[in-house]
């Protein structure tokens, strides 16, 4: 379980807090999708969870273990693939397996590549891969050390719609295998509803949680179904309200009402 308690982050130089008193618990194996307008602190939240930045106050725990620095049980996929260009695809995937013997590293990396559908690409250079393939390698790299929690920071935003949809399927298939806790930040509402068990809508200045919307649709989700559409509308409505100061948090109409507004 990933727990955020009273989490606040103020960057040097002042201004509104990037993140203010965020309380959230993401259950083990849950997929939480975080959406929100720009400056709502969603990327800050992920960076704190990855241990790349320090919280100003409050804390983050993974299964009761405080996160103050990059944690072995937490993996992250960034907005860009961030592959190391001087390593082959296989060595990139094996980058986080430094503590293991060479043969085991290689085997784990090849397994991870196979799971993202890139078996046989191990000896290529990253530059020889397309953007979608590179992002799959980045996912394989994050999953290779078998983290308990996987963070994704707008991982598919630079890709075209078809590639994105196929990566959603890939990601869900991977998640099915080991059921890690997943926190995905996105600005794409459809992506959030496709993936998330729960959608966390955040609000800017200061960054805080505006509303949590559970999505109880069975997987695989049909993007054409009325229920999918209703969930999407509900998230959009919450997003709209979150950017409009006249609506304080938690005042969105309850689920039943929002379905037909």
């Amino acid at each position, binding site marked *: 379980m990933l727990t955020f308690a009273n989490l606040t982050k103020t960057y040097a130089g002042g201004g509104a807090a990037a993140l203010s008193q965020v309380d959230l618990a993401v259950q083990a194996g849950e997929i939480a999708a975080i959406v929100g307008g720009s400056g709502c602190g969603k990327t800050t939240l992920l960076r704190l969870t990855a*241990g*790349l930045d320090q919280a100003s106050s409050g804390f983050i725990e993974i299964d009761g273990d405080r996160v103050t*620095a*990059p944690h*072995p049980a937490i993996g992250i996929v960034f907005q860009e693939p961030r592959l*190391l*260009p001087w*390593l082959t695809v296989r060595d990139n995937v094996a980058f*986080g397996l430094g503590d293991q013997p060479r043969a085991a590293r290689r085997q784990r990396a090849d397994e991870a590549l196979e799971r993202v559908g890139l078996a046989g690409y191990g000896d290529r250079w*990253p530059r020889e891969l397309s953007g979608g393939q590179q992002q799959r390698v980045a996912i394989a790299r994050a999953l290779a050390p078998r983290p308990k929690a996987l963070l994704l920071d707008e991982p598919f935003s630079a890709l075209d719609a078809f590639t994105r949809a196929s990566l959603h399927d890939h990601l869900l298939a991977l998640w099915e295998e080991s059921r890690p806790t997943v926190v995905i930040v996105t600005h794409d509402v459809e992506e959030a509803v496709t993936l998330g068990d729960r959608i966390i809508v955040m609000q800017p200045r200061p960054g805080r949680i505006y509303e949590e919307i559970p999505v109880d649709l069975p997987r695989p989700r049909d993007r054409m179904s009325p229920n999918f559409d209703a969930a999407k509308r509900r998230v959009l409505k919450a997003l709209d309200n979150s950017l409009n100061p006249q609506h304080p948090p938690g005042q969105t109409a309850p689920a039943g009402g929002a379905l037909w507004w």
Partner: protein
Amino acid sequence: MTVQASTARAVADMESVAPQDADGRARVARALAGRIGGVWLVGVILPVLLAAGWELAVAGGFANGRLMPPPSQIWGELVRLAATGELWTHLLTTLWRVLAGFAIGAIAGTLAGLLTGASGLARQALDPTIQALRAIPSIAWVPLFILWLGIFEASKVALIAVGVFFPVYLGVMGAIGSIDRKLVEVGRVFRLGRLQMATRVLLPAVLPEWVISLRSGLGLGFMFVVAAEFMGASEGLGYLLVDGQQLGKPAQILAAIITFAILGKLCDQALVLATRPLLAWRDTVRARL
């Protein structure tokens, strides 16, 4: 009607032929340019013409060629020096000096560049001093080096090392400063320690710029070996130059200059070949460096 039709067809034919024709011409022009540009021989035309012209001018009595000997004489001098073994002695002496100085300067420059590049404190403490030393023309060190290290090999190697140090130092320090923060974060996420971060992220990231700085350092090494050998040497290609000047043997000077050119080019090529496997991953237009 039929006339109009046939005219129209003729016009259509011309229109369809003309672009094909232009296309064909462009293709021929491209192929021609490609063939000429692709063959390095095109760069040889000018020097060969000049050399042949001078050879003919001297042979025909239009110039006496005493101070500027014709190519045949220079070649003869090279052959003579090679036959007596002098050429190889001088060449190996010079090569040894350059390589020793290059090794010392490159290692010191790389380490100092890594230190000041990776640590803000080290940069604040050391970089101003190093930059001040860099502002001194390196030849100005010669009298001091000779006092300190004597007139034999040590002072020459030291001068070359100083010349090589600065471009390597600047290259490595600058390269570290421009490493992508995003890649460093990948290292942090996987909890690399300082040493691992240096060997697995920082060093590979600076490799391309390091190689470039080594190449310019090597070039400067050859420049400074001549300066060092001017200062008093009994062996080396630089000595051949001075000797040729003092005894009035321009053919020997030119033979030494040509040997320098070939030696420098071969060393540079060897450096490029030795480092090429390290840089196979790059995604750049000029992947061949």
